[in-house]
């Protein structure tokens, strides 16, 4: 059997498959279905300084080969996440987990990251500078190299854990933003977050989603994600975590060939709760089919 181990910012993963934040809760819903310790790791629901209900409903819309969500970072706030959710998570997941963090000011990001820095089970901080759902907040950091840099510098000051910056695809030059994050001291880049989208109900002639717009995800965005992972991984030296529409073991390999060190799986978990388990189980045979002995050797293999 082929070797699936990869190393992400100094921490070894049994395989590169990582459920993406917002599609896997804190793991325990999925732990009822299968042993989630077979995952490389997972990125838990985005955490903010204060509790958030998020956007009004409806927050979900169907699309061709995908979906739009405008959940709006619903979470109980960092204090409750640490006091209540992480202990529950620890009962079903024994590896290092990725903590996804969002904020509405540089201080917010630093505050939340500092709190999570004290959690032993947190291996990486995935700093979301790209959530498109929140008015006036998250979006702006990820769309300007200067703002992204400012967040990264502030976060790096309060933690010794690897900082992975999660980027938005809704920008003109993703490479410039990725480079700014690298220059500011980021340990890794993850991309892509959802693409800004919208659907209109023909019967009511109104947006399907109460928030009007939301993040488009699913297999439809996979080619865009592969392209951006390819561009960014060729421009920075730090590792890149690829995501966006990944649904199969073949998609994982394609992302790694584009330059991803590890691969996050998002919307697929919502359609098929066993998606990540299936991908991990199918990886060895797909590797064999394409004559890959060691998965880590194909990272950036497409020139």
């Amino acid at each position, binding site marked *: 059997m082929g070797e699936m181990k990869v190393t992400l910012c100094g921490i070894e993963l049994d395989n590169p498959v990582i459920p993406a934040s*917002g*599609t*896997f*809760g804190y793991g325990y*819903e*999925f732990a*009822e*279905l299968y042993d989630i310790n077979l995952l490389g790791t997972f990125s838990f*629901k985005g955490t903010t300084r204060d509790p958030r*209900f*998020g956007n*009004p*409903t*409806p*927050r*979900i*819309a*169907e*699309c*061709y*080969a*995908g*979906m739009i*969500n405008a*959940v709006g970072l*619903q979470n109980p706030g960092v204090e409750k996440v640490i006091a209540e959710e992480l202990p529950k998570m620890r009962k079903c997941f024994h590896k290092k987990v990725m903590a996804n963090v969002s904020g509405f000011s540089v201080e917010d990001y630093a505050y939340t990251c500092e709190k999570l820095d004290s959690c032993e089970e947190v291996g990486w901080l995935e700093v979301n500078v790209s959530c498109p759902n929140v008015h006036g907040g998250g979006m702006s950091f990820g769309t300007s190299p200067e703002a992204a840099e400012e967040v990264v510098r502030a976060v790096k000051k309060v933690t010794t854990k690897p900082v992975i910056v999660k980027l938005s695809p809704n920008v003109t030059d993703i490479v410039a933003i990725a480079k700014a994050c690298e220059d500011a001291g980021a340990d890794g880049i993850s991309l892509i977050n959802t693409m800004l989208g919208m659907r209109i109900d023909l019967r009511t002639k109104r947006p*399907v989603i109460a928030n009007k717009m939301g993040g488009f995800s*699913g297999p439809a965005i996979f080619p865009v994600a592969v392209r951006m992972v390819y561009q960014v991984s060729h421009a920075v030296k730090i590792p890149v975590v690829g995501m966006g529409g990944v649904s199969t073991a073949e998609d994982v390999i394609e992302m790694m060939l584009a330059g991803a060190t590890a691969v996050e799986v998002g*919307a697929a*978990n*919502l*359609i*098929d*709760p*066993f998606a990540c388990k299936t991908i991990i189980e199918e990886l060895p045979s797909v590797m064999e089919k394409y004559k890959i002995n060691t998965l880590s050797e194909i990272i950036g293999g497409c020139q």
Partner: protein
Amino acid sequence: MKQGFFQIAENVPLTDSVMRMRLLGDVSDITASGQFINIKLDGLYLRRPISVYDRDENSVTIVYKAVGKGTEQMRQMKEGTLDVLTGLGNGYDLSEAGERPLLIGGGVGVPPMYLLAKQLIAMGKKVSVILGFNTKSEIFCEEEFKALGADVTVTTVDGSYGVKGFVTSAMEGKDYTYFYTCGPEPMLKAVYGASKTSGQFSFEERMGCGFGACMGCSCKTLYGNKRICKDGPVLRKEEIIWEK
């Protein structure tokens, strides 16, 4: 929750747009009335959540209205196998029914009342049911509820059959110890206002996953945020906050 592949055993029309579909498969995770199943359909990304109408040892029956792409696609199906998630949602709590529970279903909110009525009658309760429709041609399942031994009142908005008006028009004269309801949100709100006892409400919301992972269908309650798919769809009268 369980994922299973279910064989279509029956898919027949009850009205112009309402269908009854019986699916054969592993139903061991369907533990309560008021739960729903989530169906994957070819060419559509999100699963379609549909409430449980009835179940037996090896099958689950749903009664659904063809209103959109997904349910229209389901209506066309004659045979085949469907990828279905079962055992979703909390379902109704029967322990508070008292001796004379009242069940109020409106339109596509009628189906979950069937298994509930069946269970309550099996417990020896004296069950009254109010089924609300717009007009005579849209009525379904009246005879099925009667066959269970429930006291059935049908209301139609246009008065073409039964009691003229909304379900609340038929509630006034009823003597009941507790109530259970499912239907469109304006109806639920009206039932909330007209009810004389405590009760349970089943809510509907657009869902992403249907099993609590995406937070797509959250609502606020007096006891904090709840996910309609996982912590609901059934909420108690005492916890509901009407926002819309």
